[in-house]
Each structure stands twice: as structure tokens, then as C-alpha cells.
């Protein structure tokens, strides 16, 4: 197959970027999108053009490292990560635009590489259960209804890629934050810290400059882990209760 690529090139975090045009030739239909870029990079190297820098690691859809916006859609068409997008899904001869994830809180570092440290700080603000290795009771001492454990797992499946924030017109990270709040909040082990967790994580999210949710649901549409936007509603409810408690002086 053959494609016309329009790729975002930017030499550093403080320089201006622009779109460059490249041809992708002799691409097997079975190749993944990132393998197509590998082939293009081999070509560019031969021609003496610096290869396109892009993040990827596991290449099986779970590490959340890849961060490309393809034809305007984070991770491209279909539901999955960039690395799980295969070239047979494109038309031969198609023009493909490739940009990094676009969100104010994810500054571009180079070409298609973005900085997602904002997510780290949100996790550090409360995305955990305070527990020391060695202090746990027997694993079966607290039964958890299967339906609850399953729903918690639905939320825990988030891969932290940031496509939700990149897809959102407001650059909101509510889907990411709500996934963690829901994952831990549903479990009896996470319950003692629920109020603190939701308050701290949401406040950190605001501090990082992520926008608010105004129900576009673009996040849900692009999420490779299938996290539903209903978790955002759940988080808002938890946040409201926790902040009311705090405002009337109840310790959280």
C-alpha cells in the first residue's frame, strides 16, 4: 500500500512546529500504524532526513505510551491504541495526518512526543490506597460481590494514555480521574479514603490546567480501554458529597 503522510515536526518544546509531507511506500496491509512509521523512518534515514520521533513501547495496546492523533482523532479510527491500528483499515493512496496528542496540559517535547507528567501528579495526589507491604489481612477476609469487583475492574482497565484529554474540546481529564476514583472507590479497601481521594485528585487536575466536562463524550468514544463516561457522573457525585462534608467542617 501507499500513503501520503502529513506529519507534525517540531524540534523542541520551545520551538514552533509545522506539518511536513512524506510518502509511505510499499507498506504491507498487515503492518500496524507504528510499523508503517518504522518503515517510513528507515526510508527517511536512508535519505538523510532525521527520523520522526514518536513514543511507543509494548506495541500490544496496554502500556499507554503511544500518543498520536491520526486524521484528527487520538489513536485514530476505531477503538484501540495507535499500536493496535492496522494499515488494512486505511485506503490505498489515502492522505493521513499525524499529530501528537493535543491538550494544553500535555506540552509537545518533540515531533509526536508529548509530556504527560500532569497525570503523574494527579495520581500522586490521591490515586492509591494507603497500605504498607506486610500489613494486609488474608485476601479472602473481605468478600467483594462479583458485580462490584467486575465494575471496579472496568474502571481499573484505564491505560493512562491521555487520549481522553486529547479528544475533549475542553482538554478535560475527567475520564482518566474518574476511572481511578471509581476503581478504588468501589472496593471496600478503598472506601476509607474515598473523600480525600476524590477531592485531592480533582483539585490537582484543576491545578494542572485540564478543563471541565461539558458532556461531549468524545473521551468515551476514543478511550482504548472502553472506560464509560458514566464514571464521570459517579465522580461528580462523590466530589459533591465530599466537598459539602468538608465545607461544613466534617473531617475527610
Amino acid at each position: 500500500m501507499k500513503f501520503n503522510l502529513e506529519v507534525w515536526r517540531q524540534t523542541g518544546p520551545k520551538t514552533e512546529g509545522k506539518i511536513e509531507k512524506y510518502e509511505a511506500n510499499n507498506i504491507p496491509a498487515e503492518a500496524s500504524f507504528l510499523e508503517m512509521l518504522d518503515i517510513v523512518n528507515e526510508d527517511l534515514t536512508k535519505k538523510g532526513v532525521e527520523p520522526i520521533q514518536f513514543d511507543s513501547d509494548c506495541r500490544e495496546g496496554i502500556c499507554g505510551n503511544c500518543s498520536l492523533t491520526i486524521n484528527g482523532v487520538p489513536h485514530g479510527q476505531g477503538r484501540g491504541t495507535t499500536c493496535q491500528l492496522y494499515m488494512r483499515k486505511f485506503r490505498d493512496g489515502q492522505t493521513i495526518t499525524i499529530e501528537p496528542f493535543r491538550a494544553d496540559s500535555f506540552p509537545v517535547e518533540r515531533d509526536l512526543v508529548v509530556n504527560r507528567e500532569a497525570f503523574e501528579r494527579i495520581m500522586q495526589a490521591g490515586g492509591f490506597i494507603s497500605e504498607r507491604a506486610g500489613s494486609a489481612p488474608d485476601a479472602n477476609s473481605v468478600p467483594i460481590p462479583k458485580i462490584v469487583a467486575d465494575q471496579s475492574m472496568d474502571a481499573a482497565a484505564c491505560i493512562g494514555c491521555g487520549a481522553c484529554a486529547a479528544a475533549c474540546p475542553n482538554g478535560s481529564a475527567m475520564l482518566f480521574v474518574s476511572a481511578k476514583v471509581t476503581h478504588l472507590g468501589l472496593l471496600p479497601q478503598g472506601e476509607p479514603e474515598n473523600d480525600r481521594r476524590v477531592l485531592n485528585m480533582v483539585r490537582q487536575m484543576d491545578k494542572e490546567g485540564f478543563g471541565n466536562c461539558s458532556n461531549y463524550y468524545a473521551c468515551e468514544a476514543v478511550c482504548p480501554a472502553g472506560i464509560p463516561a458514566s464514571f464521570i457522573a459517579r465522580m461528580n457525585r462523590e466530589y459533591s458529597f465530599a466537598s459539602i462534608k468538608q465545607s461544613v467542617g466534617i473531617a475527610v
Partner: protein
Amino acid sequence: MTLDAKTPAGPLDKKWTSFKNTAKLVNPANKRKFDIIIVGSGLAGAAAAATLAEQGYKVKCFCYQDSPRRAHSIAAQGGINAAKNYQNDGDSVYRLFYDTIKGGDFRAREANVHRLAEVSNQIIDQCVAQGVPFAREYGGLLDNRSFGGAQVSRTFYARGQTGQQLLLGAYSALSHQIALGSVEMFSKTEMLDLVLVDGHAKGIVTRDMTTGEITSHAGDAVLLCSGGYGNVFYLSTNARGCNVTATYRAYKRGALFANPCFTQIHPTCIPVSGEYQSKLTLMSESLRNDGRVWVPKRKEDCAKDPKDIPEDARDYYLERKYPSYGNLAPRDISSRSAKEVCDDGRGVGPGGLGVYLDFADAIKRLGKHVIEERYGNLFEMYANITGENAYERPMRIYPAVHYTMGGLWVDYNLMSNVPGLHVLGEANFSDHGANRLGASALMQGLADGYFVLPNTLGTYMTAQFGKKVDAKAPAFQEAVDAAKARVQKLMSIKGTRSVDSFHRELGKIMWDKCGMARDKAGLEEALRLIPKLREEFWSNLKLLGTADGINMELERAGRVADFLEFGELMCLDALNRNESCGGHFRTEYQTPEGEALRNDDDYAFVSAWKYEGQGTAPTLVKEPLVYEEVKLATRSYK
């Protein structure tokens, strides 16, 4: 040189307890004075970083990804073993220990493996407490499934994403400690060298992958949790970035590399589809709980649609050859059997390199919804990659490099022969012998990180009071200068070939000569080819751009340069081990039925290799494997 494993005295099942009862302790006020450097943030690294910080140590943790949550442990699918015996099916610590020793073809150290089985239960408790959403039954209690090499159901799982959930648990704990200021995290930072001061590991040299800055970090002890070296084969189920650099650099600084030829080829991966391919994708072994492996009996049937091949024309070869374990035969045996039938011309799919994994019977027995619930995400992944629907047509699978049992040599304290240098998880050699059983990697990574190292580190630390090294000691500057010179050298070759082309060529040599089956002639051939390729690499590599910013080709070049040396060590080890055991199958040594023929009289030892300088052959140091509890037996799964 002799190796002292420092195994505690006493009966096997009392060793760990008596070790803990008498281990040296560092009091909380003193722990604050120690800086611990941890390289890697996977299960072993993140768990150790969080736990040591909880205990009061000051930790610096490094990873090459942009977040510790992306370490490759995230990709483990199937599950984690523990001897809970929640199923009341006869499991016990002893049985988990024995299965692991036997699974490793009697090439692992007894005391370490027993300790692993002992702490396995604590891991499950720990993970549940930190919010890992393991699969549960309707009554709310934990569910289990079976894995290869065991006749009990002892594997805990979280859908097909167990590694992800366990890593996110450890990552949560790590994030908590980062917030508290007890761990300083360095993401997108790669270790380039180990720094020794007076023979002790006291620091590392790193490159900031964003700015290109090369600098050093000093500490009181160094923990390498940097994973395995499967990417020496280029194509493997490892992430693109997985590399041998941290452990190989430590080897070049004097740490012994043990059993490098023990590599695991996983039987259930999606077959290779072309030259361009950058990685292989694993389909969890848990699929073998419900899938049946087969190929046509007659070569003529291979091209037919599988549903047109009648039951009596199919060869369910694992069930035929290993009736008592059937489709759950251990990984090395399943992989080799797949190779055998494909070599026999009965493979299916492109190039005849594939076998069927068929769920038709399970779907008939349990219903599609049950299979969907158990493996839904794997079936989806398979459909996405191959364009085929495995609910209707059997999956095609083929073995692929997946895990490396070899690693830096460590004693019972998980310390290498270099004082202060500790090695955890896949990066060490200690627990899996010549073959690892499914769902045991997660167990070992977390055991080392949460429960073993935090108890054994004191042995070294108590002797380090008042011995803080000066971060300005000449050893640091020398190592930094050497690392900078090496990067400069890579950038200045200005040849014509890309990094990946060298890596692919090395991978092909390794797969052909040192892969699923090895022989003397092939290994000797590899030992001739690799130095030639290495020479070409250093004279004909083409790198563009600069070293003072993001340059992923440069990062890969540094790693491939180390693989090009390490591959040779692997072949040397494989050539030296004149027996077949576990994942190491030398075609010269097999039984008339084609099973691995072990040689306990001459090879019941750990091969630990000592670096002797560039261009000089490494020397072999042997640690004899003494079995006090188990009797060496022929490993049979028939």
C-alpha cells in the same frame, strides 16, 4: 573464584523464617540516612521502591518510560500463582515449590524457590489490600484458574490483564511514596553504567532521554530491576524498549552473569506475518485451559479450512503425547512440540509456521458467553491483529521469545557478587531454573520487591554506616566521561545502515542458532557471525540528529551495541552446556522420544560468567546445585 550463595542453614522449610529471625536490622532513624538507587519500575522495581520508602529509606527510582506505570510488567496477561489452596484441591507451599523446581528442570536453587513459594500468599493479600480487582466468584471470594505445569488451580487473575493490575497496584504505592517525598522518580532516564567505589556498587550513570544530559547518581546501594534480555532476538513479546544494558553494564563492571542461555519460548503467540514486523504478540497461556492445540495429521490437509478437517484427521499432539497434562504441558515442552509438528510439514497458516488453538469444544461445553467473559479481550486482540474471529475459527499460534530465566547471579540476599549491587525480578537468575512456569514471573517480581529484598537488604546496609561515598569521587566522573565518549562514538560513525537493520540481523542469528533448538555447529557459527556483525555496526552505523535531545535511534543504538556483545555470551553459555534442560534444548542431547536429556552428573550447576575484558573470553564460575529436599528426577508430564 568460588560463589557463596549464603543459603541459611537448617531444614528447607525453616530457612526463611530462621533468616528473618536472625537478620540484621537497620533502625528507622538510620534508614533515613541511606540512599537506595533502583533501576526499573516494573513489578520488582516499583514494589521495592514503594516498600523500602515505606520502611524509611530514601529512594531514587529510574525508568526509561515516561511513567513508571508503563514498565513492561504491564503486559503480562494470565495471572499470578500462590499456594493459598482456596480451591481445596491439594495445593500447598511445598507443592508450589516442587512444581517450580520441577518446571525449571532442576536447575534452580532450592532455598530461593522455597522462599518464593512461602511468600506467594502474602503477595495476594498485599495486592487485594491495595485495590487490585482480582476475579471473584459470586460469593465474593477470589477465583482461580489453572496454568501449565500444575495440576491444581492456584492462579489468581484479573481478566486477561493481571500484570497491568498488579503493576498499577505497585505504581499506586510508588506514587504515594513519591507524593510523600520519600521516593524521587526519574522517568525517561536510562542507566548507561554502574559506578563502583572500592569495589562496591555506589552509583549509576544515566542519560536524560529528553535533554540528552549524561550525569551520575550516588547511593548507598544499587538495585537493578531492569527486566530480561529477550529483545536480543529482535522479535519477542517484550516491549520495544526492553534491553540488557543495565545488567550487561553491571556484568562488564564485574557482576557475574548466570545462565544466559536459559531463555523461554512461549508456545502461544500470534505467528509472524512479515519482515517489517516489530514485535510479537502473546496470547495468554490461560487460553490453554479451554483451548485444544492441534494440527492436521496429514500434510495435504494443512491448506484446508480447519472446519473441513474431520475430528479423526486431527492430531491433538499435546493430549496424545502428554495425556496427564495435555494442553497444559509446560511452556518449553509445548513450544518444542509445536516446532516438531511444523518441522514435520504439518504447520498451518503462512509459511506453515503455526498450529491451531481451538475453542470449539469449550464453546460447546460452556457457551460462548463464558469464553467471552474469560478471554474476551484476548479474542478481540487476536481479531484486531489477524482479522480473524477465533470464536468461529481456531486461533493460529506459534512460539515466540517471551522471558529470560538467566540474569545476574545473586545470593540468598539477592545481592550479586559485587557488594551493594542487588538484582530483583527477571533481571536475576535465581528462581526459575531452565524454564519458568506460567504465572510465576509476576509472583517472583512482587516477591522480590515487596517481601524478600526489604528483609535481606539490611544484611548489606548494616555494614555501611559511615561509609557514604562522595558523589564527587573520581569514579563517578570517569564513568560519566566514558559514557559520553561512547555516545559521541556512536554519533560519529556516520555509516550507511540503520540501527534496526543491525538488530534484525542479530535477532535472526540468535533465533536460528540459539533459539528453540540449538546444536554445536550452529552455536559455533553464531560465535563467528556475531563479532563480524558487531564490527560492521561500529563502522557502518548511521545515526542522524544530535545527542543533546530526544533521539530514539541513538537510544536504540546504545542498547543494540550491548546486545551485540551479550548475544555472544549467550551462545557461549549454550555451547558450554552439553545437555538439554528446560528451555535449553541441544539437539545432540535428547531421548529416543525427542525429550530433553539432562545430564545431572556433569551439569547440575549454575553457569556464572565473569567478564575478563574486551576481546578476552569470559571465565566460567560454577555454583553447584545441591538438592537437600527434592530428588532429581526425569521431568515427566506424560
